[in-house]
C-alpha cells in the first residue's frame, strides 16, 4: 500500500510538472500580449511597447520564463494579471468561491436525477419508457451549452417574466400537464394494462389538481404552500420514503415517518415565530437542518422496535424534506415583496450575473434573488450533465440485475422492493464511485461556457477571459489547479473503488 501511494504520488507529480511545461509553451505561443498595442495610433506607442516587453520579459526565451514562473510556486506566488495588477492568488480565491456556488447544487441534482432515471430506465429495459429516456438523454448530452443557455434565457426568463406580468393558465396547458404526468408515470410504473390505466388515472388526476390549484390560487402571483399543502405533501413524503426505505409493511417505520410529518405540520405556526424573531442566515439554516435530522433520528428511536436504527433512518430521511417544505413556504411568503421591489420590477428570473446590483433586503429576499440568478445556469448544467449519469447507472443496474445473487434473492422470496433497493441499487452504485469523485473534483475547474454565458466569474471564466486578453499567469494557475485536481480525483476514485468493492485490491 505504501509503495503504491509513493509510486502513484511521484508519477502524478511528474505528470503535473510536464503538463505545466507543455501548457506554458503552448499558451505562450498562442497569446500575444502586445496585441492591443499593434493597431494603436497612440503617439506614445513605442514607449508602451518597450515598457510592456520589459515588464513581461517578452525578449526572454519561453523556457526561462517558465522556470521563472515555476520558481514562484513554492513561495505561493502564481503571478499577476499584468493588465489590472491583481495577484493571481486573489483572483483564484474569488473564482473558486463563485464556481462552487454555481456548480454544487447543479452537480448534486444532476447525480440524483441521473441515477434515479437510469435505474428506472434499467428496470423497464426495452420498454417505450426506456427508449424515450435513451433518446432524451442522448439528445440532451449532445446539445451545445451556449444554445441551451440562450433558449432557456428566452423562455424560462424573458417569456416567463412576461407571463408573470399577466399570469393566466391557458386551456392547452391543462391538457399538456394532464397527459404528460399521466403518460410518464404510467410508463415508468409499468405493469398490466389494468394497472397502467389505474396509474394513468391517478397521475393525470394529480396533475390536474396541481394545475387547478395553481390556477385558482393565483400561484404565480402569490406562491406559497400554506399549512394544508404542507400537511398533504408531508404525509406523501412520509409514505413515499417509507415505501422505498423499509416498505410500507414495516408499521413502526411508517408511524415514525408519519409522526415526523405531523410534527412538521404542528410546527408550521411556531416556525413563523422563529423566522420572525431570529435574524436568519445560512449558518442558522444549516444548523436547523442538522437539528431536523437529529429530531428525526430521535423520533425513530422512540418508535424503536427490534431494528430501531432502520426506523430512525427512515424518520430522519423523512424529516429533511418536510423541514424543507417549511423553509420553502417561508421563502415563498416573501415572493410578493421580492417581485414588487423597485430593483426587480416584476422580473424575478435573471439571465445573467450572481445577484441584482444594489439589492440588499435581508436574508429571505436575497435568497430569492440568488435563486432567481441560479435557476438558469443550474437548469443548463443539470440538463447537460444528468444524461451521462443516467447512462452509467442504467448500464450498471442492468449488469447487476443479471447477476446470480439477484436470482438467489428473488428465489428465497424477498419482496421486489428489497431485491431492487437492497441488492440491486447499492451494487449498481459501485461503478459510479469511480466517476462521481472525478466529476465532483473537476467541478472546481468550473464550467467554461456556462460561466461565461451567465456572467459568473468563476474558474472557467477566469481561464477563458485571461486567455482572450493574453494574460498568461491566470491561465497557467488555472491549468495547474485543474491538472492537480485531475490527478487527485483519479487517485481518490481508485481508493474509493477499492474500499467499496472487496474484490478490488490495491497492490504495489
Amino acid at each position: 500500500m505504501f509503495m503504491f501511494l509513493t509510486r502513484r504520488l511521484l508519477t502524478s507529480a511528474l505528470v503535473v510538472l510536464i503538463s505545466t511545461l507543455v501548457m506554458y509553451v503552448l499558451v505562450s505561443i498562442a497569446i500575444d500580449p502586445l496585441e492591443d498595442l499593434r493597431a494603436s495610433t497612440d503617439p506614445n506607442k513605442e514607449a508602451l511597447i518597450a515598457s510592456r516587453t520589459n515588464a513581461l520579459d517578452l525578449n526572454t526565451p519561453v523556457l526561462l520564463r517558465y522556470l521563472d514562473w515555476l520558481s514562484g510556486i513554492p513561495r505561493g506566488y502564481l503571478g499577476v494579471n499584468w493588465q489590472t495588477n491583481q495577484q493571481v492568488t486573489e483572483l483564484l480565491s474569488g473564482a473558486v468561491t463563485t464556481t462552487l456556488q454555481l456548480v454544487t447544487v447543479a452537480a448534486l441534482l444532476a447525480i440524483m436525477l441521473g441515477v434515479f432515471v437510469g435505474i428506472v430506465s434499467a428496470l423497464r429495459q426495452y420498454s417505450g419508457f426506456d427508449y424515450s429516456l435513451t433518446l432524451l438523454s442522448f439528445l440532451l448530452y449532445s446539445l451545445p451549452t451556449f444554445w441551451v443557455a440562450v433558449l432557456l434565457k428566452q423562455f424560462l426568463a424573458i417569456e416567463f417574466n412576461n407571463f408573470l406580468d399577466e399570469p393566466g393558465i391557458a386551456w392547452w396547458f391543462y391538457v399538456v400537464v394532464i397527459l404528460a404526468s399521466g403518460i410518464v408515470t404510467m410508463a415508468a410504473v409499468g405493469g398490466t394494462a389494468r394497472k397502467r390505466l389505474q396509474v394513468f388515472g391517478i397521475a393525470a388526476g394529480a396533475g390536474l389538481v396541481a394545475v387547478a390549484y395553481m390556477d385558482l390560487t393565483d400561484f404565480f402571483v402569490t406562491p406559497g404552500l400554506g399549512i394544508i399543502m404542507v400537511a398533504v405533501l408531508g404525509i406523501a413524503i412520509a409514505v413515499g420514503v417509507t415505501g422505498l426505505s423499509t416498505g410500507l409493511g414495516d408499521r413502526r417505520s411508517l408511524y415514525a415517518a408519519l409522526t415526523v410529518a405531523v410534527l412538521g405540520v404542528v410546527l408550521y405556526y411556531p416556525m413563523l415565530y422563529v423566522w420572525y424573531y431570529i435574524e436568519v442566515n445560512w449558518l442558522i439554516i444549516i444548523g436547523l437542518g442538522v437539528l431536523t435530522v437529529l429530531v428525526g433520528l430521535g423520533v425513530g428511536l422512540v418508535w424503536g422496535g427490534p431494528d430501531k436504527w432502520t426506523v430512525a433512518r427512515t424518520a430522519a430521511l423523512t424529516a429533511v424534506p418536510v423541514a424543507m417544505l417549511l423553509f420553502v413556504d417561508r421563502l415563498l411568503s416573501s415572493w410578493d415583496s421580492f417581485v414588487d421591489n423597485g430593483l426587480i420590477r416584476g422580473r424575478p428570473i435573471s439571465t445573467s450575473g450572481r445577484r441584482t446590483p444594489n439589492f440588499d433586503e435581508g436574508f429571505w429576499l436575497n435568497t430569492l434573488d440568488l435563486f432567481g440568478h441560479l435557476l438558469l445556469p443550474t437548469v443548463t448544467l443539470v440538463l447537460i450533465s444528468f444524461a451521462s449519469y443516467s447512462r452509467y447507472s442504467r448500464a450498471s443496474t442492468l449488469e447487476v440485475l443479471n447477476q446470480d445473487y439477484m436470482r438467489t434473492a428473488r428465489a428465497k422470496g424477498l419482496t421486489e422492493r428489497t431485491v431492487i433497493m437492497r441488492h440491486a441499487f447499492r451494487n449498481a452504485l459501485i461503478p459510479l464511485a469511480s466517476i462521481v469523485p472525478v466529476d465532483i473534483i473537476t467541478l472546481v475547474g468550473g464550467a467554461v461556457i456556462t460561466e461565461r454565458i451567465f456572467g459568473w466569474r468563476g474558474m472557467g471564466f477566469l481561464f477563458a477571459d485571461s486567455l482572450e486578453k493574453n494574460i498568461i499567469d491566470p491561465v497557467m494557475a488555472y491549468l495547474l489547479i485543474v491538472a492537480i485536481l485531475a490527478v487527485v480525483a483519479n487517485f481518490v476514485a481508485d481508493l474509493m473503488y477499492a474500499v467499496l468493492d472487496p474484490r478490488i485490491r490495491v497492490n504495489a
Partner: protein
Amino acid sequence: MKIRRITAAATAVALAAALAACAPPEDEDGGDGDGNGGNADTSITVGWNQPFYSYNSDTSNGNATANSIILYLMNSGLNYYDANQELIADESFGSYELLSEDPLTVEYTIADGVEWSDGTPVDASDLLLAWAAGSGVVNTVEADAVERDESNYPVLDDGAVFFDSSSAGLGFTDIPEISEDGKSLTLTYSEPFADWEVQLDVGVPAHVTAMQALDIEDPQEAKDALVDAITTEDAAALSPIANFWNSGYDFTELPDDPSLYLSNGAYVLTDMVDGQYATLEANDGYTGERPAGIETVTVSWNEDPNAQVQQLENGEVDLMGPQATTDIVDALGGIDGVELETGVEGTYEHLDLVFNNGGPFDPATYGGDEATALAVRQAFLTALPRQDIIDRLIAPLQDGAEVRDSQLITPGAPGYDEIIADNGSDQYSESDPAAAQAILAEAGVTAPIDVRTMFAADNVRRDNIFNIIQPVLAEAGFNLVDARNADWGSKLGDGTYDAVYFGWQSTSTAVTESQATFGTGGLNNLNGFSDPEVDALFDQLAVTTDEDEQIDIQTQIDTILFDAAYGLTLFQFPSVAAWNTDRLEGVEPAPLNPTIFYGYWNWSVPE
C-alpha cells in the same frame, strides 16, 4: 413498552400543538426592510463589457476604457469631446488660455468653488501632479529600464522616481509655474505643439496622493509638500509620491478608504463589487454645468454581448453599447421598447499597399521605375470595390454608412468635408476594373499580378471583404493570394505580404497622431512609404496651433497620399447603442471614448 412510546409521541405532538395554538396566523416579512430599493425610478443600469480596475487611468496599465468610462461620470475636466468630435471647454470646471504662441505658453485656471467630494478644493496642484506624471520630466529612471515587482509595479528603491504614465507630448515642457492663489498653472513648451489643448487635465487628487505617500494629515499641507517636491525635483519626496501614484489607486472593489475614490464631477462612487457592478450616485456637492441627469447609475459588467442583449430584453440593463455585428444588431432590432442608434467608432478599416518588399507595388521590382510601380498601385486601387464592401457589410449595421475618404480625418469630425473635397479621393470613388486594366496595359505590366493579401484569420468581416474584392480585382488583372494569418498583428511590416487590411484605433482627434503612420520611418509606417514633402508637412503640422491652418496642411498631406496610391481607407467601424425607451431618454452616443456615456447630463427618465 409500546404504550410508553405512544404516550411519549403523543405528548410531543400535544406539546407542539399547544405551542401552535398561541401562534399568530400571519407573520409577513418581518425584518425585510422597506422593499423598495431606494430611488429605483431614477436609477438605470448600464451594461459594459470589462470591469473597472483602476481609479488612475493615466498609468500605462490603467489607461483603458473600462476605467475611463467610470471616471468620466465621476470626474469633470477642462474639456471633453462632444458627439461630433468637437472639443468643448467646460468653463464651470476651469479654463485655459494661450498666452503666447512662441514660446507656446498656456495658462490653466481652475474655477472657484470646484471641490473634490471630501471638500478639498481642486486647484493647480492637481494639475501639477498630472503634469509631473505625464511629462516624465522628474523621472530618474527610463521606462524600459524599470524593474517591476511581483504585482507588476515599478520598483522604486533609493529615492528613484518613475511615474508609470501612458501619456506623451508633455515632454517638451519645463516645470510649470503656479500662481500665488494656487488656482492657476502656467505651462511653457520648448517648441510649439499642435495638440496642446488635450495634453493636460486634472487626474487623481494631489492632496490624497501626497497625504498617502508622505503620511501627512492635512490636505493643504500635503498639497504644499507635493508642489514643493515637484518644483524642486526633490527625488526623496517624489519617490513615494510616484510609487503611490503608480499603485495606490488600483482596486476592483470599493476600498475601505474613501479618499481613494474622490469625485470632482457629477457622480460619486458608492459601491463596487468585484467583477459584478459599480454604483454611482449623483454628487450633491457638484456645482458645474454637467450635473447628473439620473440619480443612480449602475454599471453592470458582462463580457458576452449576446448575453447583454438578453439582459436588455429582460430589463436587467437599460443601456448598452456592444460591438456592432449582424447578430447583435438583428437581435436588438427584434426587441420591443428598445431604441437602437447606429453610428461609428474610432477604429477604421484601411487597406495599405507595401512599397518596400520587392513585391508588385515596390519600384525595385521594376528596376526602380517609380512610375510603373505607381501605375500598378493606381490600377489596384482603381479596381478596389470599396462601395461594394460598405453596401454589403456595413450598411446593414449602420444607417447612412459611407466610405471613409480621408487618411487623416474621421468622417463627421471638423474639417472632414473640406478635406475630402480637395484631397483627390474622388479618383477612387468607383471601382472600375476596365480602367485598371487600361492603366496596367499602358504601364506595360503583364497581368495577372500576384498580390499576397494579409488579413486577420479568425475575423468573419475581413474574410467577407476578401471574398468581395478578390473577383473584382481578378477582373482587373490582380490575383489576390490569400495570406490570412491569425498572428497578423506581429507580422505587420515584415514584408511577407503586398497588401494588408486592418483597423487603426484612434483614441483622440490629435493631429500629430498620424505622423507615426505616414512619416518616413514612423513606428506605424509598416509599408515603407516615404515622401520628404509629407515629412515636412507633418513637421509643420506639429507646430501649427491654428485649426484652419491645420486642416489646410492635412489636406495637402492627404492629397499626396492619394496621388501616391498609398492605399485606401475603407470604413469607420460601425457601432451600436441600444436602450430601453421606458427607462431612459436623451442618449447620444459619441464615436470616441466614452461612447454611450457621453452626454450623461442629458439623460432622463421618460414621463
